[in-house]
């Protein structure tokens, strides 16, 4: 445990030393919410409704993009070589990839909470007394994104490939899920495709918690994302090979 904690500390501090990662997970999200909110506010009677929509959709988009933090944390060129030394130490392989997942998750979660707090101060509706449920749901979702990022690295053995594919994949599911604008209004086929996207499912559950006081989606989100994380960890255990670092 002590060894795991040392690796975890190092991974977390490496993340916090990367200004691009920090901005990507904080400033970028806020800027996108502001821009999209402002651009679409004309469609609403109350401009705040536009910001409310994009605050949630981009928070979810940001959580999905958290997978890129994990690929960076796992295989970034400058980090890859020292990782080889960790592999030679008596730590075992599980702590290596699990610590990257955990560090990426915590890093993303802290920054996204910070974004959420800034949004709250700006008057965005994040559920009032139900806000705790939103923050709770963010935990396994953030973790599953990080786990997916690490799994992609284990499968593709290359950060660049993993993050390029992930980035496009996340962009597509975010687009289909309505992160940029809702596809519900664009015909039944697109609406049906949209519903396949996990981003759409999350947006629906988050809005139900925030606006309808409806918590029925919380447990499924917790359960599905935890199960998905477990599946990713299992995949990592099967596909992670020290040779990929040589």
């Amino acid at each position, binding site marked *: 445990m*002590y060894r795991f904690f*040392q690796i975890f500390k190092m991974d977390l501090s490496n993340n916090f030393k990367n200004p691009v990662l920090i901005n990507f997970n904080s400033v970028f999200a806020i800027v996108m919410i502001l821009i999209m909110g402002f651009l679409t506010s004309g469609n609403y009677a109350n401009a705040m409704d536009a910001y409310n929509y994009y605050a949630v959709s981009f928070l979810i988009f940001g959580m999905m993009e958290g997978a890129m933090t994990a690929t960076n944390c796992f295989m970034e060129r*400058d980090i890859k*070589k020292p990782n*080889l*030394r960790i592999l*030679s130490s*008596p*730590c075992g392989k599980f702590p290596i990839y699990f610590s990257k997942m955990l560090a990426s998750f915590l890093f993303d979660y802290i920054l996204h909470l910070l974004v959420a707090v800034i949004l709250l101060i700006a008057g965005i509706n994040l559920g009032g007394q139900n806000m705790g449920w939103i923050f709770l749901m963010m935990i396994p979702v953030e973790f599953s994104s990080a786990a997916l990022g690490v799994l992609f690295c284990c499968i593709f053995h290359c950060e660049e490939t993993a993050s390029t594919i992930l980035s496009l994949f996340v962009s597509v599911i975010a687009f289909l899920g309505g992160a940029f604008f809702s596809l519900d209004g664009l015909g039944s086929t697109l609406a049906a495709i949209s519903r396949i996207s996990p981003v759409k499912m999350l947006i629906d559950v988050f809005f139900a918690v925030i606006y309808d006081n409806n918590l029925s989606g919380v447990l499924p989100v917790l359960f599905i994302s935890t199960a998905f994380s477990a599946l990713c960890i299992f995949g990592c255990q099967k596909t992670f090979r020290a040779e990929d670092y*040589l």
Partner: protein
Amino acid sequence: MEKLLEINSLSKSFKGNRVLDNISFLIEKGEVLCLLGPNGAGKSTTINILLGLLGRDSGTITYNGKVVSRSHLRAYKQKLGVVPQDLALYEELSAQQNARFFTSLYGLRGSNLDEAVEEALQFAGLTDRRKDKVKTFSGGMKRRLNIACAIAHHPELVIMDEPTVGIDPQSRNHILDSIKKLQADGITILYTTHYMEEVEAISSRIIIIDHGKIIAEGTKEKLKENIQSEKCYHIELEEGSPVPTEGFYDVEGVKEAKSDGNKIDIVSLRGVENLDRIISLISDAGAHIRNIAGEEASLETVFLKLTGRKLRN
């Protein structure tokens, strides 16, 4: 001497290409074993298997009398220190932070960790720069820190994969002296390099590996002795002396004879045994010898003789 690590019938193939072919050797406690071989000979594969980074197709590794298996891997790794060929350091961190982190992975903590790190940095001559970021270090300093990170946890066996690549002679000397100090402290070292003078300076024993097989093994003296029988003589004649050109190949053991001006180069497979007959042959031809120089076999000669001079991929 006592056995520390024993490798038995180790084999490894990559995509049908056999890179290690049933190799066996042992490392004794307290020795510096140099693993030599041209590029692609199988050195790095051997080291990566020993470090548990690469699986093996067959063979066993026994450490201190215990077979290294999956269940023993952790305890085995605890005893190892590794100096990778690529600098495995966090450039954004200080020397001390790097050493602390990598040493903590071996379970050291608290004051033990502090002491071990200080000792290792002192050993590497980096105490003054311990707070500086690695990215500000010279190549030699990074190499020294690379070693410090490997030895701080007091390993029994340090595996060094070409630890002196690309550094200045001063840093290289420092590293070689450090290795001698480590050996004096009873630490066993497995060392790979391409620099023969390093092997001459530090090795207790040498293994030459090529095409995945061990082709020679022994102390440097023994290896040299094995090819000592082949000797090259450079014979210089007095000015104006007639130069004999024939008859050398009639002398038993002469492999090659060349003359250029008043100089004759002879390669003999019989060492000094046939030197008197060669001298008589020259004298009989009416020539006067000014000087005879014999070329001693160096490790490089041994290496090139065993592995050939052909360029490798």
